[in-house]
């Protein structure tokens, strides 16, 4: 047994003890971190998590606004593609109508976005004037009949 483990000074001098119970060496108290209650820590963590969620949510919103959201991004790209296709179809149709009107001698209807079907002088009577029809047709009779 180690003699240093006994604190003889605390006892009156009674001679060497025959038996002394083993004394556990005193441990130095660990430096304890100052603590609040668990409730306070939980509230702080919750507030922090709200802030973190706001930051993440902001990032997600920016991502969505840029059109690169994982779920909506592909749909947005598809929608853009579809609208571009429609626009290009419209643009492709426009020169035709212009050409047809040019053939029929009109210059006023090119902005109406006509389809290729509507470019024929017979089907759209509103665009067909007797002056346009006159060079190609001998009489305006077919035009008036199509109106009725």
């Amino acid at each position, binding site marked *: 047994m180690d003699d240093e483990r006994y604190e003889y000074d605390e006892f009156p001098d009674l001679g060497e003890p025959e038996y002394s119970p083993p004394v556990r060496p005193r441990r130095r108290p660990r430096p304890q971190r100052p603590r609040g209650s668990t409730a306070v*820590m939980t509230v702080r963590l919750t507030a922090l998590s709200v802030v*973190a969620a706001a930051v993440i949510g902001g990032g997600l919103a920016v991502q*969505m606004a840029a059109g690169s959201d*994982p779920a909506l991004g592909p749909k947005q790209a598809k929608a853009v593609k579809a609208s571009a296709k429609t626009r290009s179809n419209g643009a492709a149709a426009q020169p035709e109508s212009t050409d047809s009107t040019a053939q029929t001698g009109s210059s006023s209807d090119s902005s109406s976005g006509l389809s290729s079907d509507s470019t024929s002088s017979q089907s759209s009577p509103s665009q067909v004037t007797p002056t346009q029809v006159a060079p190609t047709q001998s009489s305006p009779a077919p035009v008036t009949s199509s109106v009725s």
Partner: protein
Amino acid sequence: MTNYTDPGQHFFWIASRAFGVVALVLIALSVGFGIAISARASNEPAYMRQVHEATALAGLIAIAIHAALLLGDTYLKPGVAGLAIPFVISTTRIWTAVGVISAWLAAILGLSFYARKWIGTQRWRRMHRWSLAVYVLGIAHGVGSGTDGLSLWMIAIIVATGIPVVLMAFYRYMPSQEPAAGRT
């Protein structure tokens, strides 16, 4: 008509996603601290216990907010039953159900701490070990049903929070090489 690039239209959905990520991180931290406590890996077990409890409670609150915000989502329209009962929502049915089960497990296993007087400490300990499953199911839900589950930043978060948990779990549950105390 749905606008795909207007965050204002999808506020509840975005907020729910954000709180889902936060909940996953908090649960990972709580599980990690819990395993560290049981493995006696810290010099300050009392403080660790406090952090473990606080992160678990904050995680539970984040899960509740994550679910509650979905009630406001006009696209999903899950309803209270869809959020509380597994397999009711048809959108990514299995992964959403995994999330619902995980949330219930988190609530039961987490809050059982306060009922351990009635449950009994041994039984509570045995129950509490299943908290690791909450984390695993939460990741499965996030990756399987979460919109951002396969995003690079989300994978980075999962790896960053998951590796310490996995290492701790190995350290805790691997059989010890040291001779048992008391035997010489």
